[in-house]
């Protein structure tokens, strides 16, 4: 797909961003993901407005899945906070990589606040692909439009999933609920770029249920720290051997 633009005004760049969001592959991804999360929120007894607010404030599907499933099963708040915090570390390097693309000579810090909050996998991938071919003065507006397009899609289909799960027969509601683990499993595997990522995926899949089964406290935190560090350790050993 070619780079959209050039845009004559910030408003045109903003709406160009919204249009890009609605015509990209991530529209379908977000639709499926948030229908699943909506069904999950319904199943765990949270309100549909709570879910919508979490989409606007948290704006990270993995963190929202952790939040919904952990709060819904009555996990201790501190444990949920640690698990959400660990799942979100990836946002840090993403912001670090994105901001140099958005920053021009006259860009003020407050203009970067919204794009910083909007940073998520979908917006990040598309921004890194599209922004370099666009004049610097229009990039923040385009990026905000892109993000509003994605966020609106996610919030809308969160409601759709929520009310579908409420009204459907159990087998179909179960199928909706299965969307979250199924799509996350595959998209996480798809994002694995190196051996270390694939190893972390396998270790997490194994450790998570085992620690839960053994009733280990803070099981998600240990799954992440132990599984991730083991994978990283193997990666370093292989590098040293090579």
């Amino acid at each position, binding site marked *: 797909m070619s780079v959209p633009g050039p845009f004559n005004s910030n408003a045109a760049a903003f709406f160009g961003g919204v249009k890009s969001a609605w015509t990209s592959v991530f529209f*379908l991804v977000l639709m499926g993901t948030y229908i699943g999360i909506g069904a999950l929120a319904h*199943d765990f007894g949270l*309100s549909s407005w*709570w879910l919508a*607010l979490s989409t606007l*404030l*948290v704006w990270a599907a*993995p*963190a929202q899945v952790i*939040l919904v*499933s952990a709060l819904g099963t009555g996990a201790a*708040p501190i444990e949920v*906070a640690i698990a*959400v*915090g*660990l*799942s*979100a*570390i990836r*946002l840090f*390097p993403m912001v*670090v990589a994105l901001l*140099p693309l958005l920053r021009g000579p006259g860009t003020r*810090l407050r203009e970067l606040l919204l794009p910083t*909050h909007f940073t998520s996998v979908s917006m990040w991938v598309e921004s890194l692909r599209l922004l370099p071919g666009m004049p610097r003065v229009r990039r923040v507006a385009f990026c905000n439009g892109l993000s509003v397009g994605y966020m609106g899609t996610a919030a809308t289909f969160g409601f759709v999933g929520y009310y579908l799960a409420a009204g459907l027969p*159990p*087998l179909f*509601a*179960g*199928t*909706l609920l*299965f*969307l979250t*683990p*199924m*799509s*996350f*499993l595959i*998209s996480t*595997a*798809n994002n694995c770029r190196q051996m270390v*990522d694939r*190893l*972390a995926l*396998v*270790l*997490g*899949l*194994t450790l*998570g*249920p085992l*620690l*839960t089964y053994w009733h280990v406290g803070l*099981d998600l935190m240990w*799954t*992440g720290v132990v*599984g*991730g*560090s083991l*994978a990283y350790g193997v990666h370093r050993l292989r590098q040293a051997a090579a």
Partner: protein
Amino acid sequence: MNAAMNAAMNAAMNAAMNAALAELWPYLLLILVGYLPNEMWRVLGLVLARGLNEDSEIVVWSRAVATAIIAGVIAKLILFSAGALAGIPLSVRIGAAVCGFLAFLAVKRSVFAGVLVGEAVLLLGGFLFAQ
């Protein structure tokens, strides 16, 4: 006002406050254990946005930790399902996840094909082996 009336009013006010708190509690939790621990990494990126690239060691490690956590959540959602998904037998859930994953690998790493096949197997298995 006599003491009994006072006590009744206090009790009513307490009940109203508890009801308000119970309604607001999920939103407070959303801010405290959802928004803040998530957002701090974005803000940190804004503050320290120089000198880190995708291949630095700390980034590789943090990606591995995040991947393992997500994987743990995925496995728990499939194995220890709640609600409507729990009505579909465990073997069907695992079988559907495996089939979906294999379809993803088989069809040119297509996320869409994988999810579609996984869902279809789950629906069929759930229909045939309903509990």
